[in-house]
């Protein structure tokens, strides 16, 4: 059994409360062990470097149909942009990288677990095919429920038990990880070209509101005791003035407490909060409302959030929020792909350019950073760019630099065309806070792992956990004076050990250990009603046969199942 | 009555072609499904033809002998149709307007009756074109 010893690094492990102590980490058989358990380990000298658990991304669009539309319909995203450097497979793409490049780039940054944020259930075989072709990183994928006809019908009648049985069935059918909700009700309304902008807007035909959907799904989630909570993309994304809708959505979690065996402490994860924290009533007078939002989040510990940080790049937006993408293409007139998925969801894809020359973009940039900088508990706010919506995940190191350095923020702000107006519309210029390496570790591994309910395997360095360890060439006692140094260190980790295998060395991928598909299997009592509903809908309304819908075992790759028993 | 007319040619799938193709491209079914041309009655009359007569179809890049049939799916005068497949592809121009797609639909052909010639088999046409035809065995 291969043994490794990572020696003398400055270790940051928020799950154990370790704050930069010089420690050794032992690895044996793919797991972290007490160093005393090692016999004859190979040694990695991490002296003068930062040691953290492998990164965990709670919300990223990396595999599946809409990601692939983004790849397919943007050949210009590859032209003269892809690196002339390869691992065992070619690496292509910029804002929407190929599966191979996705795996390699995450690994180079020291990440080991990426949660695909939206899986249309009907397309789950596609998602799993892409997972197979995404090297190194472990993947989970969340099926979307917020516009699913079964869910809408059960929750309209307040049939939580039936909805729970259906949810358990769908998680198993798709080998999914948790309950994703995107623009609840709004994407179903989009089936008729409509939307639900506010949480009390009725969903056409189904006679239910987004608020009822979200509450019903929280109840379902806690009845099942899933590792992760409801993962919500709120209504009215991306529109000036939407912060009140966001507050309304956040309040839906009031009165609910988490029930699970996985250490999860929230009942609702609200994703890419940056897109939901705007005041004003148009892009002319848009302003930051992060204070109101973060005051609420800080005061309610049954909620976690992630940033959705705008990185000021040309990128490709993609979301199951179909009506939003339609709205976006009317603004920039660029190509628009849309895929409405029968009985389940929708999706849209539009290229987008966030530019330092455009006020809307620079305000969005400030809003994202403010959220993190105003957060009291970095264990409840996570670093994301809603890849690739607000920017590609490859820009996380830049985001870290912005969070850790006022100078880095100032330098970027110097490039803004509408700097004064951006400062007027936001509070970014008044914030001096600089996050620490410990807080970064909270936001990028410990926090997301705990929120996902996988902190017994990922996100920390306690013995018994997966030996996923990133070593960065950063000395906490002697941090680079130029913030570009921080960015560089997080872009290419000095070492990544994945499952006990040295995977990245000096920023280059040197091996490709087998990756895993993480999913949740829930045992629920037999439910004849739900079985019959499923049979009926497949007989009459789906365009595929029920027996061909559930993922065949042969299309699930390197399964890592998390079992939950509610019976 | 003209002894040759110029028509606008298109080629597309027909269900007979589809069935026969799956049976095999060397079968009599494929031969009968694909070595045919459909034209508007006016054009058939202009050539003084009766159905089932053979014609030579010539385009900018080649020619082929096919049989005139009265199709179920009507065309307007000036338009001609050969089901997609080996015979059509003897005359389809390979020019692609820089898209990769040959000019399968919408290219000029001349059509003229022939007397003493026969339709060639798929194999004879394809192998013949690349110098591999060794005659019927």
């Amino acid at each position: 059994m291969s043994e490794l010893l990572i020696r003398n690094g400055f270790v940051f492990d928020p799950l154990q409360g370790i704050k930069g102590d010089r420690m050794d980490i032992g690895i044996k058989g793919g797991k972290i062990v007490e160093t005393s358990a090692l016999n004859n380990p190979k040694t990695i000298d991490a002296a003068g470097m930062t040691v953290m658990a492998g990164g965990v991304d709670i919300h990223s669009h990396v595999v599946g149909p809409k990601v692939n539309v983004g790849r397919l319909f943007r050949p210009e995203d590859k032209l003269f942009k892809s690196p002339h450097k390869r691992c065992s497979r070619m690496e292509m793409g910029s804002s929407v990288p190929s599966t191979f490049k996705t795996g390699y780039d995450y690994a180079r940054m020291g990440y080991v677990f990426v949660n695909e944020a939206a899986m249309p259930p009907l397309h789950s075989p596609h998602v799993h095919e892409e997972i197979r072709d995404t090297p190194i990183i472990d993947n989970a994928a969340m099926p979307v429920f917020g516009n699913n006809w079964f869910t809408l019908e059960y929750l309209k009648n307040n049939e939580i038990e039936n909805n729970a049985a259906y949810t358990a069935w769908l998680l198993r059918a798709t080998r999914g990880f948790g309950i994703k909700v995107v623009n609840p009700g709004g994407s179903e309304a989009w089936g008729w070209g409509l939307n639900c902008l506010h949480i009390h807007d009725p969903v056409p035909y189904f006679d239910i509101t987004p608020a009822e959907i979200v509450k019903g799904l929280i109840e379902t989630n806690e009845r099942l005791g899933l590792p992760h909570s409801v993962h919500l993309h709120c209504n009215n994304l991306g529109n000036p003035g939407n912060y009140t809708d966001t507050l309304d959505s956040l309040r839906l979690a009031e009165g609910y407490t988490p029930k699970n065996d996985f250490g999860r402490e929230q009942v609702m994860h609200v994703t890419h909060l940056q897109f939901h924290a705007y005041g004003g009533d148009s892009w002319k007078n848009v302003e930051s409302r992060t204070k109101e939002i973060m005051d609420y989040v800080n005061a309610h510990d049954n909620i976690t959030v992630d940033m959705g940080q705008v990185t000021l790049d040309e990128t490709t937006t993609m979301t199951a929020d179909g009506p939003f993408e339609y709205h976006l293409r009317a603004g920039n007139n660029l190509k628009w792909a849309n895929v409405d998925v029968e009985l389940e969801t929708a999706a849209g894809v539009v290229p987008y350019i966030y530019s330092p020359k455009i006020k809307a973009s620079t305000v969005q940039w400030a809003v994202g950073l403010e959220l993190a900088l105003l957060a009291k508990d970095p264990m409840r706010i996570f670093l994301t760019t809603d890849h690739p919506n607000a920017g590609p995940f490859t820009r996380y190191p830049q985001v870290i630099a912005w969070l850790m350095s006022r100078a880095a923020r100032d330098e970027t702000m110097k490039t803004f065309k509408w700097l004064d107006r951006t400062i007027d519309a936001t509070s970014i210029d008044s914030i001096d806070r600089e996050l620490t390496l410990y807080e970064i570790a909270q936001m990028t591994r410990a926090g997301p792992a705990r929120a996902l309910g996988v902190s017994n395997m990922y996100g920390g360095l306690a013995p018994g956990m997966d030996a996923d360890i990133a070593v960065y060439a950063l000395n906490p006692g002697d941090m680079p004076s130029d913030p570009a140094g921080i960015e560089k260190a997080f872009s290419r980790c000095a070492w990544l050990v994945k499952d006990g295998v040295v995977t990245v060395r000096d920023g280059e991928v040197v091996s490709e250990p087998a990756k895993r598909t993480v999913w949740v299997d829930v045992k629920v009592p037999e439910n004849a009603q739900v079985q019959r509903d499923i049979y009926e809908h497949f007989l009459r309304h789906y365009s595929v046969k029920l027996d061909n819908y559930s993922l065949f075992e042969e299309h699930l790759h390197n399964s890592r199942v998390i079992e939950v028993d509610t019976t | 009555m003209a002894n040759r007319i110029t028509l606008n040619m298109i080629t597309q799938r027909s269900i007979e072609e589809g069935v026969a193709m799956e049976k095999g491209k060397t079968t009599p079914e494929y031969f009968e499904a694909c070595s045919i041309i459909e034209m508007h009655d006016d054009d058939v009359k202009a050539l003084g033809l009766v159905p089932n007569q053979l014609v030579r179809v010539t385009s900018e890049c080649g020619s082929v002998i096919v049989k005139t049939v009265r199709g179920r799916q009507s065309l307007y005068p000036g338009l001609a149709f050969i089901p997609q497949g080996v015979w059509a592809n003897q005359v389809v121009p390979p020019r692609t307007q820089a898209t990769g797609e040959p000019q399968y639909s919408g290219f000029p052909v001349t059509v003229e009756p022939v007397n003493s010639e026969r339709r060639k088999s798929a194999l004879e046409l394809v192998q013949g074109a690349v110098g591999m035809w060794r005659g019927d065995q």
Partner: protein
Amino acid sequence: MPKKVENVGCPYCGVCCDDLVVTVSDDGKKILEVENACAIGNQIFHHATGGERIRLPRLRQPDGTYKDISYEEAVDYAAKVLYNAKKPLIYGFGSTNCEGMAAAAKVAEKAGAVLDNCASICHGSSFLAIFDNGYPSCTLGETKNRADVIVYWGANPAHAHPRHMSRYSIFPRGFFTGKGHKSRKIIVIDPRHTDTAQMADIYLQVKQGHDYELFDAFRAVVRGHEIPDQVAGIKREQIVEVAEILKKARFGTIFYGMGLCHSDGRNHNVDIAISLTRDLNDFTKWTIMAMRGHYNITGPGAVWSWQYGYPYCLDLTKRDIAHMNPGETSSVDLAMRDEVDAFFNVGTDAGAHFPIDAVKHLRKHPWITVDPNINMASEISDLHIPVGIVGVEVPGIVYRMDNVPIQYRKVIDPPEGVISDEELFERIHQRLCELEAEETAKEGAKAAPEGVRAGSEP
């Protein structure tokens, strides 16, 4: 007892019917009956066990005949052709599962080949249009459950997709469309009064090659502008009437086919159809869909997009960066411009379906066919490698015309000894790695890559 296999996917067209019931003989060797399939699908299953199948690779001999060889010899031959060519072309994949396509891509990447699929001569134009203008689409169940207006433009499903109209568009009763056909308006636009046009409430006989002008007229009318008395052979009044129907639909889908992709303007006909669909969404809900031909021709577009970012026409010769530009890297253009020096025909029949001039150009160089059956390509090849029939003898994922993945089953075993596309390509890949290693060894240390290359090949 004969065995019934249910929920079988049909390996014919992009409709991907997955409700077939296939009865297999006691010994599991003969297909006795196929229920629910169209005439063409039926033929595929019966053909699989109905006659003689090729069971071994066949290599062309100096006298022009074929000689049976082992798979091992065939793999070696194929790998060497790929290895020695400066720019081999691997084309086809109309009848392959996604696993096979992924394996073929690995081979193409290793060999520095151009990788292309049948879309190149079929719906490639759609890709070009999608690159330029997007694709507001939906799954077929959406059309079935919601659509009250259906347009078939330059498409003839009655012949090319026999069950399309009954499963998804005209006839089925869906959730919001309980009256089926009665609740829908059908518009067919085609230069021929096709069997599909027989089903139409409104038929527009557009002048061949002038669809673009007609779309432009629709768009102008939808925006409230005047148009000439007649456009592309259609009278103004009729255009205005149809435009009103489109605007007043509750949910509409435009299905389009080769009539747009194969005629003058190619991608632009699709592009402007997409523009019209975008426009109509300002009034109500409209979607558009390409009537993709083969049952898994959507597959390579999906697989290669996630692997490289391009759906077809991938020039992988530079090894570390892929390049795509149909018109240059497309099979027929590569052939006509003499840009390639070896040809792999996989699960298709370029011999029958390419213009004959392109066949002649390709035949100047080695030509290898991978296909379960004898076809025109196999009969002009240097090497023909038989493989199992996907959807009959080999299971796997295929992508329906609406990009929905369908899991196909195996109904019977392939003929003894016959392997799958995936296994064949994995073996060719293995052999290519060996050839590369042999050459590296010959050239000595200087050719060895610096450092440790990730996933170093065995």
